[in-house]
């Protein structure tokens, strides 16, 4: 992937396929590093599946939806000297606390660090594709924070879908404003 934000879009789709109702995308950045966490309350994975989920060649047709996504993220993290971990609690065994957490750690100073890229378009694409799912996006940088919580938006919007064009534009402008100050269009 050319941008980490594309890996984020891809991995968050796994959460949606796993029937998550709430997906958190958390980015924590320092001068040297970037930590990405994607947490969901979806159906989770069995221990057996979890053990082979980062092996692209173990994927069978019935499990194709996981496919190359995690191996690509793992590669992107490891090629900077970082790592990727996954923990998961299967719904059958953990009826209250099921879900999956993917954590990837990157050294930004490494030559092979893939830039974050257009993360705003990633958030807009996720909300557009799954307006019934709630997303918390939070990017913590030294001294500042960018955040979007669709639960708050939903409270104000009532039954107006989050995928309405005006709402998507509001989300894009809100994030653009938080990242760059005065609103300007991107992508």
């Amino acid at each position: 992937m050319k941008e980490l934000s594309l890996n984020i879009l891809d991995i968050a789709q796994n959460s949606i396929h796993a029937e998550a109702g709430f997906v958190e995308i958390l980015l924590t950045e320092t001068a040297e590093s970037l930590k990405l966490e994607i947490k969901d309350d979806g159906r989770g994975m069995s221990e057996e599946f979890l053990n082979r989920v980062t092996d692209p060649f173990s994927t069978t047709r019935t499990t194709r939806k996981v496919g190359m996504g995690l191996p690509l993220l793992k590669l992107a993290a490891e090629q900077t000297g970082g790592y990727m971990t996954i923990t998961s609690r299967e719904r059958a065994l953990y009826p209250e606390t099921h879900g999956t957490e993917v954590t990837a750690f990157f050294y930004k100073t490494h030559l092979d660090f893939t830039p974050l890229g257009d993360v705003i378009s990633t958030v807009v694409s996720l909300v557009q594709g799954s307006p019934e799912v709630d997303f918390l996006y939070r990017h913590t940088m030294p001294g500042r924070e960018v955040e979007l919580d669709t639960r708050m938006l939903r409270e104000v919007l009532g039954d107006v879908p989050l995928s309405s064009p005006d709402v998507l534009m509001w989300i894009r402008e809100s994030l653009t404003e938080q990242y760059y100050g005065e609103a300007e269009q991107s992508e």
Partner: protein
Amino acid sequence: MKSLEELKAIRERMQNKVILREGSAEKRIVVGMATCGIAAGARPVLNTFVEEIANRGLTGSVEVSQTGCIGMCRFEPIVEVFEGDERVTYVLIDPAKAKEIVEKHIVGGKPIVEYTIGAAEK
């Protein structure tokens, strides 16, 4: 921070309109957004369709949605346009071609044959 007042205004505006039910649109544009599609450039294609449909005021009659991998990864980004029982499959689409599809196919009613899978496989 963008104000929640603006969101409230959106709600007021939208409540006066009939909210589109899923599946009720006349035309559907479906963009492949699996790993293969995303890696090949599907995200800006999707966003181009969403913006073009909104800007042309077609939100009520054209639905833009996302799908997974349909097994033809080398042709991604793949875009399918559904209208009634008809389906047109476009391959190797970029934002410029997406704009053209909206203009000529969605608005003009004429599929762009050279961007279809049939043309690509020749």
